[in-house]
Every structure is written in structure tokens, then in C-alpha cells.
């Protein structure tokens, strides 16, 4: 007698430490909320990496704000809490993982995405730009810097992003760029005093 009830056990799997979700027969799976999927399908720029990134980033940023606010201001959460919540959300959606590094005042996100890996900046810059917009309520300029094994996303002011782009084009590595930004920015402030 055939089994009439569908057993979902084991069909959808999660590997949280790597930020991956899976279904049988696929290299990975991504959990998309209906709102995100509809926005991707109806946006004018179509479902390319940037369109997917903006829809996902706004969604994730809003969820982060909700989870970290807890009756107060989400921006008052510790950096550790932010990274933990970010990685949890990225993992259950099957989107990878990320770490946050600070070099003085400069900040880098070292991302290991699971989708649009080859798209690089075309996906990661709108993803984290929209994510921080959804989290803080205002734009956070981002610039992807090349890094072996991962993609580094620099967060900074427009002036800092412009300076970082110059250094990147000169072949300077992400960590050195972040350090230089902190040093040059501090030197600029001290010189103005």
C-alpha cells in the first residue's frame, strides 16, 4: 500500500556553520521570502544579481533591525550580536556567512556568499548597501575589494570609498587599504585641528 503522507524529513537541510541550505540534487538552496521573490520578478532591472541583492539586502536588514532592537535601538547592539544575527539569517536563507573586521575606524566585511559568487561586486555591493540601509535607515556606501578566498566589502563614507577605489586600482590589498584609510583620515583630522 503506498504511503499517502509526504515525509519532509531530510529534504531541506541546513549547514549553519557554512551558511548553506540544501535540497536533494542541488548544489545548494536559497530560501526566498515571497515578498523578495515578487520584488525580484517585478523590478524594472529584472532578476540579475543586483536586483536580487537589493531585494535580499533590504529584507535581511529589516529582519536584523527587528531582531536586535528588542524594545530599544538596534544600533545599540554589540558588534558581536550584530554579526551573530547576520550569520544566523544568512545561514537559514542559505546565503553564506560573513565576518566583520575593523581597522581603527575602517570596517571590512569578509563575505563568503553562496550565490552569484562570480558576480562579485555586482552582487555584494548592492547586497550590503541595501542591508545596512534596511538596518540603519540610511545609505552605507560599500566597495568590494579583492581578497583571496573571500570577498571583502569596505564600508565607509563616500570620500573613503573614493580613496579606497584609487588604492584598489593601484593593486593595494584590502587590509592595507583599510589601514591606510584609518591613518589618512586621522591625519586629516589632526591636520585640521
Amino acid at each position, binding site marked *: 500500500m503506498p504511503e*499517502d503522507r509526504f515525509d519532509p524529513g531530510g529534504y531541506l537541510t541546513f549547514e549553519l556553520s557554512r551558511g548553506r541550505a540544501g535540497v536533494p540534487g542541488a548544489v545548494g538552496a536559497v530560501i526566498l521570502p515571497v515578498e523578495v521573490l515578487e520584488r525580484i520578478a517585478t523590478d524594472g532591472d529584472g532578476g540579475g544579481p543586483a536586483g536580487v541583492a537589493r531585494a535580499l539586502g533590504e529584507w535581511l536588514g529589516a529582519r536584523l533591525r527587528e531582531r536586535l532592537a528588542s524594545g530599544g535601538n538596534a544600533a545599540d547592539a554589540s558588534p558581536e550580536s550584530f554579526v551573530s544575527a547576520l550569520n544566523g539569517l544568512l545561514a537559514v536563507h542559505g546565503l553564506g556567512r560573513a565576518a566583520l573586521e575593523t581597522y581603527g575606524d575602517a570596517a571590512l566585511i569578509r563575505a563568503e556568499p553562496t550565490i552569484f559568487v562570480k558576480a562579485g561586486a555586482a552582487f555584494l555591493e548592492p547586497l550590503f548597501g541595501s542591508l545596512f540601509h534596511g538596518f540603519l535607515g540610511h545609505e552605507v556606501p560599500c566597495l568590494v575589494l579583492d581578497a583571496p578566498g573571500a570577498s571583502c566589502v569596505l564600508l565607509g563614507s563616500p570620500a573613503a570609498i573614493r580613496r579606497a577605489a584609487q588604492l584598489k586600482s593601484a593593486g593595494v590589498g584590502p587590509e592595507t587599504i583599510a589601514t591606510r584609510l584609518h591613518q589618512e583620515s586621522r591625519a586629516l583630522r589632526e591636520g585640521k585641528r
Partner: protein
Amino acid sequence: MTPDPEAKKAKLEAILGRLRANRTNLGHPGAALPPSTDSVEPVTLPLHAAHRPGPAVAVAAAPAPLVEVAPPPPPLLPSTTVSPTVAPVSVAAAAPVPAPAPAEPEEEVRPQRIEAVAPVEAPVVRTSGAVVLHRPRTIGELLGAALRLFEKS
């Protein structure tokens, strides 16, 4: 029936007498046998105690074993509520990321790495620096510092 040993003894001896006479007459054809009118009544002897019937024993009938029959299972219906099933989580140690390159010689800026080793665990903050610059206490402070880079104030 009243047992009378003397009368019965007399009857038995009479019977024995006729039997002896019959035996005497055997071999003499034509001799007429006297008709037997004796009857032997049963003798009731006193029963030995061991043979007396014992008291009646009422044997209760053993109750029939109870067989509990489970109610039939409900018919299988398609489930409309599917509980989410989460496979066991494989928590692998995070691959070590090479430490950022040292800064320019004029100032040693060591990075602080903030990462969640596993989303279900507390995040780990790695500070490798001998020179620990101002460490932001909140994510708002951290992002605010980044957004103020190269600003005059």
C-alpha cells in the same frame, strides 16, 4: 431393607443344603430339582471412613481471560500541517582566515575581527593587536566611525 443376620444366615444355609442335594442327585437322571424360591437381598455393609464421600467442594469457574482489543487506528488522512524538520546541524570549525597584513610603518594598526564561529553560538571577537585602538561598543558606533572617515569634523 432391614438387615437380619440370623435370617440371612438361615437362608444361606437352606440354599447350601439344596445345593448339596443337587450335587447328590447329579448323575441320577429323572431326579426332579426342587424349585428355587430363595432370593438374595443385598447386604449393606458399613462403609469404611476412608470411603465416605468428602465434603462437597465448590469450584469456582475460572474467569475467562480478558482480551483487550485496541480501537482501530484512525484512517490516514493527508496532513495539512507539516511540521518543519531540521536536519542535524553540522557545526564545523570556522576556517581560519589569514590575519590582515601589517599596517604601514608609521602606525601599527591591528585589526579586530568579529565573527560568529557558528550562528548558534556566541560570536568570537579576535583581537590580534598589540595596539588596540578604540574599540566600538555598539554596531552603530562601529558603522558611524566608518561613515565619518575623511570627514573634517
